[in-house]
């Protein structure tokens, strides 16, 4: 028994060695800092250091929940993320299928790159592009409204359109990344499936619903579980910069990250900012584990772990 394990170890030794750098990276960057979680429960001061600072119970978490806006903030964060996950995945899959059917190689590259480009643009720049469209004074939308004889809208004071604007902006900016992964997944599908389907006279739509979609389900699930883990986080830039931090829009743009930023802008404190981070991670962790468990129940081979 023992010699067998040794022999096995010897066989796999090169693999274990290859694992060391990655493991070291993971431990140093992702595991050791985790001990910092205690800061969220401490009244931190630099003289006593992290471990000797006095305990503070759950007091650091108080400001997150006692606020009257707590409900709005949690609702916004979760619902926007759910909408983002659905919209970005659906649009991403449609775009990926369409791009994969482009036959001309250089055009294919062009489409692919142009969809990815917004992903690489800083959110501050995006916020100014949106401002160029929505500005009350000089915005393009108001210019169109005025030209067609309608009253210009107060975009940054009217909450009506913002859920839509944010979803569209987020999709425009973020969809390229998912599309790229789906293109890779579709490229990996064996071509003989399609040839067989064509021989049997399957239409393009039938090919998509019966071959392409079922084949990329594992990618969809992986991407989805990963985004679910970040459901309690929000893209600070998207919710702070893009609405130009307009107070009138807070009821539809205030999320956990912007709330924490605004609350702690005056008096910081490591304890309370860590508390927000801990809460976000814990909710994300619970959700990832439960969604994965759900997936495992429905189709075992598609679960991540």
């Amino acid at each position, binding site marked *: 028994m023992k010699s067998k394990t040794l022999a096995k170890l010897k066989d796999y030794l090169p693999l274990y060695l290859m694992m060391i750098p990655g493991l070291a990276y993971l431990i140093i960057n992702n595991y050791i800092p985790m001990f910092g979680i205690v800061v969220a429960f401490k009244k931190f001061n630099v003289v006593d250091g992290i471990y000797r600072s006095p305990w503070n119970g759950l007091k650091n978490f108080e*400001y997150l929940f006692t606020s009257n806006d707590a409900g709005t903030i949690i609702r916004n964060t979760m619902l926007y993320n759910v909408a983002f996950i659905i919209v970005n995945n659906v649009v991403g899959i449609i775009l990926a299928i369409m791009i994969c059917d482009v036959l001309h190689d250089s055009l294919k590259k062009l489409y692919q790159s142009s969809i990815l480009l917004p992903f690489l643009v800083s959110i501050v720049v995006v916020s100014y592009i949106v401002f160029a469209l929505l500005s009350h004074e000089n915005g393009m939308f108001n210019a169109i409204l005025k030209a067609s004889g309608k009253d210009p809208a107060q975009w940054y004071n009217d909450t009506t359109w913002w859920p839509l604007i944010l979803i569209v902006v987020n999709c425009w900016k973020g969809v390229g990344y998912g599309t790229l992964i789906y293109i890779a997944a579709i490229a990996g599908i064996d071509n003989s499936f399609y040839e067989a389907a064509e021989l049997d006279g399957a239409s393009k739509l039938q090919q998509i619903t019966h071959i392409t979609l079922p084949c990329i389900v594992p990618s969809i699930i992986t991407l989805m579980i990963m985004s679910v883990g970040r459901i309690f986080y929000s893209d600070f830039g998207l919710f702070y910069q893009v609405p130009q931090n307009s107070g009138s829009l807070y009821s539809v743009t205030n999320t956990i990250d912007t709330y924490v930023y605004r609350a702690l802008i005056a008096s910081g404190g490591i304890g309370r900012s860590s508390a927000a981070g801990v809460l976000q991670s814990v909710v994300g962790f619970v959700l990832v584990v439960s969604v994965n468990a759900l997936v495992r129940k429905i189709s075992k081979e598609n679960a991540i772990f």
Partner: protein
Amino acid sequence: MSKKILSLLLALLFVVASLSGCTAKDSSSDKDAANGEPSEINFDEEPYTINFLYLVAMEGTDQQKVNDAVNELTLKELNMKVNMIPMTFGTYMSQLPLMLSSGEDLDIFPAMANQFATYIESKYIVNCDDYAAYTKDIYEVLGEDAAAGYVGDFLVGFSNVKERSYPAGLVCRKDIFEELGYKVEDFAADNQYGVDFDKITELFAAVKAKYPDMICLDGTSTMGIQTESYGDNMGNVFGYLEGYGQTTTVTNWFESDEFRMFAEINREWFTSGYVSTDIAVNSDSGEIKVKAGNCFSYITNVKPNTDIEKLAQTGYEVVVVPLSKPMKHTNAVTADLLVVANASKDKVKAFQFLNWSYKSKEFNDLINWGVEGLDWVENEDGLACYPEGVDAFNVGYHNDFGFIYPNQMAGHPWVGNPTNIWDIYAEYNANTAKSQAFGFMFNSVPVETEIAQLNSVYEQYYKDIAFGVIDVDQGLADFNKALYDAGLQKVIDEKQRQLDEWLANQK
């Protein structure tokens, strides 16, 4: 097998974790030295290196030359070296919290008033009161203002030498202002603000009539945002001493008739189209807006030589219409203080250096204007100006940040200012009305949770109401309700309690 690996890993993790926990510092030895007499400078010992963090307008190419010149100076006068850490404001905001919480080497840095409570609570900074013996020159330079930096019995740090009040003013383009036949005196009135706001409205109407496409008022401030100009907020806007601080009753300014009046004036400007319709979401300063060429005026803090300063920033000659009377309150002195970090390895030396920095003419010139002969020269009037062939665009080092350096009055004023500018400043400061709570600073630690929520509420409403973007009655009602729901009364009560206690101790 895998279990063994797992347990090994866990053991490793705990070892690393416990090692990283052992970084707490022992600061007791410094404390003993603090009570001793200030010693003569010992030129035989190894020079101590001061880590001096300061703010700069931009990173200059001559930084290294400035560093060398500073070091030469300090080695000669103090037997110390200086590690200069220049930071732009953006870098400062993002880097400083990390430097402080990780206990990085740092001796002296500028701290902003809204951070004091956190810094004290987290023990990032030293109580300057313990080292008073080493800072005698600072007390001499600052006078009564040296004692303004107390939170309770903790002396946070020392103020810069600058103007001691933040009156609001309307900065207007001079060409249009004069073309329309106005003079600054036209706006004076015998009310508590010294200005007739109706006349301002008339001015905007006249500008609009003459230049229909021009925006009369833009930027990031207006009367309702200038909370430091019309009363004493004692550290934050939640709980206010109205009427230039000539009262000791803490009230909610946002409920006052004054704030309502300001909001209504702005509402009139907004609905009449004098103000940019984007003003509540705009984050560009008035200087930038005027520089762009289509904006007539903006509101900001003003001081005796504002018109000279703004000429450089806007590219236009400007006139300043005062919108409030000058007043002095603690915050005007302590908005930012030079503090000594607890991470300092030799706090006595740090205080000796700080003390010296308030006296040294050369040092204040060096950090503000750069190396003499290279970045600036003295002209025949005794003012600093660019040397031949050097201008604002190719100069290697130039900050004009005197307001945040120890003592700009020790050094040279820049050309364009009157030669007696420091006398004008001194006279201006001496004639400023003083808040009854001058010297008191609110300690926000007992109500931190409420403050965090109030900040969030304030951010939501203040711009829309102050700029008149939304209906005043509805806006004020919602705003005040949200403030009280977030615990405003508790903060006001706590502020009143601390103020009463402080007042009782003053007698």
